[in-house]
């Protein structure tokens, strides 16, 4: 797994300017050569589609926040970081939206209408049980967790 690095530290390589100018979606092989960044959060970083598949196959309850280090995304990572200690039975992760292999999330039918980052996906027993778009209130996230992972 690629080590956690902040987006800003890699600005030179991926031309990222916060989330104003979006990371270009590079072909996988080009992006991988760039030693792509992971998100600057304390969550576990998913860095490939196979890792995500393995995660949801081996764990009953999984949450993935797929976004950038932008104003709507950061609060959602923060909420998940705080909830992580309260819910040891749930695996909380992030996944850089612009990672080519995050297509596994970008192409989910559940997110077809989504137009706001981050895309937050809740998996139970390998299946998507809930997906939300954009910033969420802590109370809404708690309610979803209580509903779908009860």
């Amino acid at each position: 797994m690629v080590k956690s690095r902040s987006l800003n530290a890699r600005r030179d390589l991926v031309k990222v300017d916060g989330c104003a100018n979006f990371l270009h979606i590079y072909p996988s092989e080009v992006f991988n050569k760039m030693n792509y960044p992971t998100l600057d959060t304390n969550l576990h970083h998913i860095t490939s589609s196979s890792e995500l598949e393995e995660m949801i196959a081996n764990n009953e309850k999984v949450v993935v926040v797929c976004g950038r280090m932008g104003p709507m995304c950061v609060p959602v990572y923060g909420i998940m970081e705080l909830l992580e200690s309260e819910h040891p039975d749930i695996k909380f992760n992030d996944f850089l939206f612009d990672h080519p292999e995050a297509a596994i999330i970008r192409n989910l039918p559940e997110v077809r209408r989504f137009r706001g980052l981050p895309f937050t996906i809740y998996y139970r027993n390998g299946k998507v049980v809930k997906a939300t778009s954009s910033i969420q209130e802590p109370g809404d996230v708690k309610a979803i967790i209580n509903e779908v992972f009860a």
Partner: protein
Amino acid sequence: MTNYDLIIIGAGPAGLTAAIYASRAKLRVLVIDKSTAGGQVKTTHQVANFPGFVEPIPGYKLAQNMYKQAQLYGTEFKLISNIKELYLTPKEKWVTLTSGEKFEAPFFILATGRSPRLLNLPGEKELAGNGISYCATCDGDFYKGKDIFVIGGGNSAMEESLLLLQLVNSITVIHQFDELQAEKITAEKVTSNPKATFMYSHEPRKFEAVGDKIAVEIENLKTHEHVTLERDGVFIFVGMIPNNELIKGTDVKLNKYGYISINEQTMETNIPGVYAAGDIRDKFQWQITTAVSDGTIAALNIIKHR
């Protein structure tokens, strides 16, 4: 019931600064926030005007630093915690959380800040993130080459419109007044762009998803005629409101706009021992620097008087 020397409500720059000062002075400090730490700063793309950072610093980084600094000096936190009841009198001050916990202190600082105003129209909440957005830098990319509405005519609406104009095919600005409220220099950059058109004296009334489009019912405020138009998305920038819901239930005095009235020398409110700091207090400049200044003044007065 747990006792503290100082309880701060709100973990934005004002609350965190007060926490740093008070904790360094060895007060036992609790900060309560319904969200994560950082306030509006954590949702700010880049901060370029906070002294000490030569390069602009991402807002979330600045927020994280302030939070870590307060933790380092021993401030305790209750984050993503909802307050059930706030009781503030000259003699007795306490707060309860929905979790059932109760905390008491002789001093309170109210630092609940402001939030973006929502229109609270039918369809708005349901379509947020699915065609309705509040952040051009975050979601503009989804609307490349598309036709969108921007609602609002103030500074933030026009600044965000300038960003969106680089991406979208067209913008239709819906604004309630006859002219834009934004600074002239910014407004002119938008009005002179051929991709922008304006519906002055109009207000949206309802949002609805129609296939991949958003249908917006719009009222002409002069004729009261309603028209429904479809676009690919809607961006809403209609100003900020004080987070005063909790405070309204107390005897703390608010001004007519809903901001807390204070003594400018001390930040103390009409209730002895209760202070207000940052964007929630009656002021004209809502900035990080002014918020941290308020937090400093409030904390130093509390340290002096305890």
